[in-house]
């Protein structure tokens, strides 16, 4: 589809771009107003923009969304991006991440005295736009640009607390690791271009199917280089080093946004790249003949295990959740490694429930950090016994869901991922994953233990947070339970979105 015809199908992204501009304009117009008002204006704009993008995403014609027959992607802008059920699934997830990040930023103590609210929210919206593009890119160049767009915005967001040393250090680490990874990635992309003579995924697939067997080694190198960039984005071992520092140093809303949104967008890019560009019919055998799937399996196993082992001893709740999210990237990767529809469906499902439970956990952590002013696990001490029974119960639901216990959604996510793994014959990986959930229970239970099993000390202040602030976590907790008991609906959505790869 040409540029002009594509525009009506590109409305969600356009809405985000317009919001970005509106934020800049509004910031200029209100520069003399008091800070509180400026913050309100900017946040409202960002919320409205995100909501409009969401409505436009699910408001597009049903055929394109893949609800009905039309599962075939529509290529926009001459093959630069695609619109299909997969894109819609991720855009909804990412749009919701933006809304959550804005809502959390409004309640964050760290960002209370932020002197440039317009700038902050504009970058947040910009990062979301980049993530949308990551989810829909079907061209190497577009994929790379979208990824860089998100990375650059994330560096700024991470270092947003300029006077906080940890925040600045985190931003610098993020930048340096990111630079190396994206350099490797674009180098790999240039090899792929050299091997296939194409930049857009469908043509790459055709080119790979016809690839001279002698060039398979080169293909493996190229794919591994691309994987470096992708692995960095979703924070898998050995490209995870930035994650703990960044998650700890960044303001909590940004951490959440990175952990939930950025990871989902990374997975979207990865799935599209590997399934669309690589494993559709012809090229599957070609990629299967390289050591890439095997190496990916190792990365998956190591990520799950390392993330969980490293989380065991953490004392800082942000850091603990950072390592936990590394291990969850490993579980997600298990769905990618099997290169099947069931695997893709499992990843999509996993990301959706991961959104719910991880967001919920970070949200409660934010409230606890706000009220106690500390980030170590003892901030949770005796929470249930000093008036915070409700948040403690919600947190327990989120944490046990992350650990993969039924009847919570996290269990279903793991069930589906393992299900795909067994179907794909990856018995060892599934066993490692299953044992890892036992390890993870230990550190999640450390927080639960502090909330319920330990009595509060004198210095622990009573929990005084208005009930209204618990609305969002309560909703997330309810969804976590509901999706754990009846997951047919979400399963169907993920299934529909994943079938675009095989039609």
């Amino acid at each position, binding site marked *: 589809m040409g540029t002009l015809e594509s525009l009506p199908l590109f409305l969600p992204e356009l809405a985000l771009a317009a919001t970005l501009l509106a934020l800049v304009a509004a910031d200029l117009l209100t520069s003399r107003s008091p800070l509180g008002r400026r913050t309100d204006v900017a946040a409202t704009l960002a919320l409205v923009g995100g909501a409009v993008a969401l409505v436009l995403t699910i408001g597009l014609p049903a055929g394109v969304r893949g609800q009905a027959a039309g599962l075939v992607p529509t290529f926009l802008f001459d093959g630069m991006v695609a619109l299909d059920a997969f894109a819609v699934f991720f855009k909804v997830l990412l749009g919701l991440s933006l809304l959550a990040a804005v809502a959390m930023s409004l309640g964050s103590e760290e960002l209370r005295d932020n002197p440039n609210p317009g700038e902050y929210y504009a970058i947040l919206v910009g990062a979301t736009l980049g993530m949308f593009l990551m989810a829909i890119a079907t061209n190497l160049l577009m994929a790379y640009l979208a990824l860089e767009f998100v990375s650059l915005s994330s560096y700024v967001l991470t270092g947003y607390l300029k006077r906080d040393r940890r925040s600045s250090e985190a931003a610098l680490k993020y930048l340096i690791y990111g630079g190396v990874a994206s350099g490797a990635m674009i180098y790999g992309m240039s090899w792929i271009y050299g091997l296939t003579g194409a930049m857009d995924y469908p043509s790459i697939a055709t080119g790979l199917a016809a690839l001279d067997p002698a060039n398979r080694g080169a293909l493996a190198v190229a794919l591994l280089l691309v994987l470096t960039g992708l692995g960095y984005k979703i924070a898998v071992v050995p490209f995870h080093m930035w994650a703990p520092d960044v998650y700890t140093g960044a303001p909590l809303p940004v951490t959440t946004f990175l952990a939930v949104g950025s990871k989902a967008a990374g997975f979207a890019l990865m799935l599209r790249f590997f399934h669309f560009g690589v494993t559709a019919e012809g090229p599957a055998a070609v990629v299967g003949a390289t050591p890439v799937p095997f190496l990916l399996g190792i990365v998956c196993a190591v990520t799950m295990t390392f993330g969980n082992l490293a989380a065991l001893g953490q004392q800082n709740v942000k850091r603990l959740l950072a390592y936990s999210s590394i291990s969850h990237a490993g579980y997600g990767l298990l769905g990618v490694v099997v290169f099947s529809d069931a695997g893709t469906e499992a990843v999509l499902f996993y990301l959706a429930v991961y959104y719910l439970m991880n967001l919920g956990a970070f949200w409660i952590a934010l409230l606890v950090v706000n009220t106690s002013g500390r980030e170590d696990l003892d901030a949770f001490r005796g929470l249930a016994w000093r008036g915070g029974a409700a948040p403690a119960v919600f947190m327990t639901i989120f944490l046990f869901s992350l650990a993969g216990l039924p009847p919570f959604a996290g269990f279903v996510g793991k069930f589906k991922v393992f299900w795909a793994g*067994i179907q794909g014959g990856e018995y060892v990986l599934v066993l490692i994953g299953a044992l890892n959930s036992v390890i993870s229970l230990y550190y999640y239970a450390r927080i639960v233990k502090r909330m319920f099993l330990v009595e509060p000390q004198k210095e622990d202040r009573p929990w005084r947070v208005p009930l209204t602030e618990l609305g969002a976590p309560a909703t997330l907790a309810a969804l976590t339970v509901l999706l754990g008991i009846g997951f047919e609906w979400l399963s169907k959505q993920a299934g529909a979105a994943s079938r675009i790869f095989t039609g």
Partner: protein
Amino acid sequence: MDNVLVWMTFLPLAGMAVILCLPSRAHGLIRWTALAFTVPPLLLGIRLFGEFDRAVTTFQYIVRTPWIPSYNIDFFVGVDGISISMVLLTALLCPICVLASWGIEKGVKGYFALFLLLDTGMMGVFVALDFFLFYIFWEVMLLPMYFLIGIWGGPRREYAAIKFFLYTLFGSVLMLVALLYLYFTPDQPSLDMTQLGALVADRIPLEIQIILWVALFIGFAIKIPAFPFHTWLPDAHVEAPTAVSVILAGVLLKMGTYGILRINFGILPAATLAPVEWLGGLSLATVLLAFIGTINIIYGALCAMAQTDLKKLVAYSSISHMGYVMLGMAAFTPQAINGAVLQMFNHGTITAMLFLLVGVVYDRAHHRDINGFGGLASIVPRYTYVTGFAFFAAMGLPGLSAFISEVLVLLGAWRVYPVFTVIAASAVVLTAGYMLWALQRIYLGPPNEKYRDLPEINTRELMTLAPLAVIVLVLGIYPLLVLDLQSPALIALADKVIAAAPSATHLAALGAGH
């Protein structure tokens, strides 16, 4: 839905919802609500006992509705001879435990809410006929258990709670992996526990079946707890509040053996009795089961003898008594398998009495050191009578229920495992030893002046013990009440397993008289 099992399973859950809506200071109201939602399942259980068709070997009271259609997962419950006694036991023990928890003062609302959730989880495990549903209930039980031990337990409760949690979860993830493997084997993925055995029998090579068998077995063995996975049990028991100990020993341990009967034997019968040359045609799985069972009997008894903490003594006696269940299950003779399941029921009632009695004395003396009492018989005679009764029942005194089940196990196992049986039978002496020794140290001798004013057992406590004592006595005289319920289904299960074994070698070993 007008189904006894659905009501029995979900009434407690409804009770939990009601309790969560009550004000947290209304302690009395919460307690009565908990009782009001645990007594009806017991009444329904009594009705079930009366109406249960003893002649058929298939499932009764079936409810089946699609749950997750795209995964072919159903909400599927039913009861047969294998599970009926466990369903009844659960229904019986829950109201008793609510009564036994009357004295809880800390976080009353949370305690009873979690307790009712636990009740639903336990009942669900015994009635679930879809493996996925079974797994959900199995895991759902862990959460309340963790909190019940961790919040309302003794000094080392945090350690005990997490140890219990991790051990059990380790077992259950192995079960999950096996579940997934089984799920995919039929053409149409299925987790229907009643059909799965037939669906997968010819599709999984025997070696893989054995691996699956072992994975499932480890999951269940941790729950029993079978040696060497038993170390969580004494810790959990010592720290847990009385009612939770009762549930733990009375119901939870049975889930392990029930799981083996239902899933290992029911779904993988060929692996269960796959003959091995060097074992003289017996199967590795069952010999292992019998061997571990025997170790449990001896080792549990020896450990019990060494304890000075009364509760720990009872905990180790549980390990010992569950050994009989395993030994009986491994033999596949009608007497042995009947004895095993009867022993599950009897142990549930007797050990519940023991833990309740330990709770009674702990509430008064605030310690459980066996050597710290002495001569209680003259101070609290009524309490002593009841304790004596329970101790003698646990020892397997003829005329009381455990005698019947242990003898059945030993008689049945004798034909298949003479050596194990002789060793197991000799443990009766050890059991008598530690039980009588403990009785003597606590109740006999000169009265300990410190406890001159120890209050006598009260009516509420007697109410919790009386029904159990009656059952122990009645089943000791007329065990057919329970044997009738279970026997046809158990013999059918044993026949199915024997028929599925790939060679007839062990038939000879079992004795053609079967």
